[in-house]
């Protein structure tokens, strides 16, 4: 049923339709509304039988999910930012053990400085942990990707993160089509685990493995993700047939036909990028964009094909590999290997900084003129940077950076005002 609903609520209602048997919750902004809604549903409606467990940390949240999943229950949790890092050890463990847990990430920056707003630093920090990572462009997609995530995870015995932009999606009210129970039941079979803790058939899970087989265990995890590259588009197609809409898949292109310039990005910022593309097309620019909906496994071949005609690619990234540059663009670069395509990396939207159409358009125009720096920080306030570097030059004890910058912002604002 289509209704005007908050993104978190839409995800919670959809997750409930997937009949999770164990849900572990620990609050962190901007994930809270999801687990609150699930908590409210637990013990009522479709969410029975389900154990909803309020744990004492994110480390425990994922650990409880690990135990539940190994014992054959469909397990779900959600987190963000500091919470994801706090459970990092268990994130690797869940995938190493091949447990098909589904976890929502309400993408948020990582401190210090502490910041509750959106960027992709959290899920990017764990991109190589062996989880499949899906990125939602809209709330409809976020909701739908959860249904697909449970099926994919359980088919492959591999955990899946569904990443949705904090606030921008989690707290946005949009029309979302929430399926009915029967539709989901028809599409998502009951969990049939490959390995299960069962007194009738005792097995050891999580035993020690030395150099003789560790490489092979890891290779198989990689192989599983490579197989997912085939399976994800099939599931998306199958989903379209049953639910009547396109959601998920590996990537989605927008007006890329004959585009000389293609913009690549993850998540909700694609909406803004598409508006800029429309605007620039009106003015005769040959530009298109590409939303990557599956970041792990990385759809290198599909991306290479989709970017075949492009002369230049601009990657808009909501995360930064400090000391190196882009994270997504490093993968995009690999997909472009051997081609002469120019690649621009644009770091944008860190810590919730608005990614505006005006700034994007200016940036794309510079790229088209091949005047863009290869690594660009969108809307970087260079006045603040210069002031601070000068302060550090003048004084050994220059003090805490973040506090100084906030002070400078006030000063600059006062000068302008």
């Amino acid at each position: 049923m289509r209704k005007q609903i908050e993104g978190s609520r839409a995800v919670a209602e959809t997750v409930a339709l997937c009949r999770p048997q164990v849900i572990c919750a620990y609050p962190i902004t901007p994930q809270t509304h999801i687990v609150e809604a699930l908590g409210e549903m637990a013990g009522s409606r479709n969410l029975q039988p389900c154990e909803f467990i309020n744990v004492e940390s994110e480390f425990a949240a994922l650990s409880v999910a690990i135990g539940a999943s190994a014992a054959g229950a469909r397990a779900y949790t959600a987190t963000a930012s500091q919470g994801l890092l706090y459970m990092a050890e268990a994130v690797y463990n869940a995938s190493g053990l091949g447990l098909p847990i589904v976890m929502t990430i309400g993408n948020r920056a990582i401190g210090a400085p502490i910041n509750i707003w959106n960027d992709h630093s959290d899920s990017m920090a764990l991109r190589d942990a062996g989880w499949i990572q899906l990125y939602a462009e809209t709330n409809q997609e976020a909701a739908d990707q959860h249904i697909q995530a449970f099926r994919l995870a359980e088919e492959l015995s591999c955990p899946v993160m569904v990443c949705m932009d904090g606030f921008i999606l989690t707290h946005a009210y949009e029309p979302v089509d929430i399926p009915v129970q029967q539709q989901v039941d028809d599409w998502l079979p009951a969990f049939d685990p490959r390995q299960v803790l069962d007194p009738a058939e005792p097995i050891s899970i999580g035993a020690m493995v030395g150099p003789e087989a560790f490489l092979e265990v890891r290779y198989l995890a990689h192989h599983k993700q490579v197989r997912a590259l085939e399976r994800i588009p099939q599931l998306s197609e199958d989903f379209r047939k049953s639910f009547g809409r396109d959601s998920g898949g590996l990537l989605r292109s927008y007006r890329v036909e004959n585009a000389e310039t293609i913009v690549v990005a993850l998540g909700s910022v694609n909406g803004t990028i598409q508006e800029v593309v429309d605007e620039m097309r009106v003015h005769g620019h040959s530009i298109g964009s590409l939303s990557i909906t599956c970041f792990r496994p990385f759809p290198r071949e599909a991306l290479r094909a989709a970017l075949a005609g492009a002369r230049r690619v601009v990657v808009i990234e909501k995360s930064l590999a400090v000391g190196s540059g882009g994270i997504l663009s490093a993968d995009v670069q690999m997909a472009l290997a051997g081609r002469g395509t120019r690649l621009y990396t644009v770091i944008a939207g860190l810590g919730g900084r608005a990614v505006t159409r005006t700034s994007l358009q200016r940036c794309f125009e510079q790229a088209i003129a091949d005047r863009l720096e290869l690594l660009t920080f969108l809307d970087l306030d260079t006045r603040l940077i210069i002031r601070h570097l000068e302060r550090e030059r003048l004084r050994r004890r220059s003090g805490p950076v973040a506090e100084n910058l906030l002070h400078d912002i006030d000063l600059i604002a006062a000068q302008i005002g």
Partner: protein
Amino acid sequence: MASQPIKFFQTGTFTIGNRLLPEAARSIQSDPLRANSLNCGHRACQGCGEALGARYAIDAAIRAAQGKLIVANATGCLEVFSTPYPESSWQIPWMHSLFGNAAAVATGIAAAMKVKGRTDVRVVAQGGDGGTADIGLACLSGMFERADDVLFICYDNEAYMNTGVQRSSATPPAARTATTPATGGQRGARFGQGKNLPLIAMAHHISYVATASVGDLRDLEAKVEKAIGMGGARYIHVHVPCPLGWGSAPHDTIKVARAAMESGLFPIMEAEHGEVIGRRLIRKKLPVEEYLKLQKRFAHLFSPVRDAAAIAAIQAIADGNIRKFGLMEEHQQ
């Protein structure tokens, strides 16, 4: 139990021969049909108290659960010596996830059993003192506070043995470990207030808390059996000498464990809902020296010169335990 009509008498000992006991009170290990959870093939050191304690505890749990048992294990010696592929020694559904999360993993398993309506399956989590009192304490406390249907068993060998005998918060004062040396001006682990996990568990008012020792295996079995039969969060803390880390002779493991009990250094008690309901009385009180002397980790207390002050301080700890838990009531009355 398959019984054997054998007459068996012992003299000069406090131990009653198992077969002289009524059938219901006999040790599970004396049953030829007993489960053998921890099979041959494991790689523990000779005389390992943890291997012995875990085998008795889990065998008892299996019997009490009528075979329907699932175990979550923390990282540590027990996990490492029992599982290198392909020699997994566990005859039960067993899982190891991480060092600090055994209690939470067990909560998850118990939750899964509950949603599946498998109330017949019992769940045990187990780990060393490090995995319990240090890195695992948050998950353990959470499990207690929620009263999850899990029995947590801690095998306390008073240090991080698996990584090479470093100090944990369960390491006793004066003990030499790799990170509390007894060289130069240093005298082993510092004297402090300690971290008493059984008391911390009792402060959660969980349904059952007990201490036990490989020095009294029958008591350990009985407590595990009792705990398995109860609901909610339960905790058993088992004292397990480690010949490698303590510098005791492998054949002295039981002797060392008994000396800990009989000196009062390791009080044996049980508690329900936060109140002590039973204790194992000391029969013939040993001076702590008798316990300390068996272990090289305390050798610096005796040579080159006797450290009378430290020994007296340790004696005071034992005497304090005896008072606090009433371990010698009979004698005092």
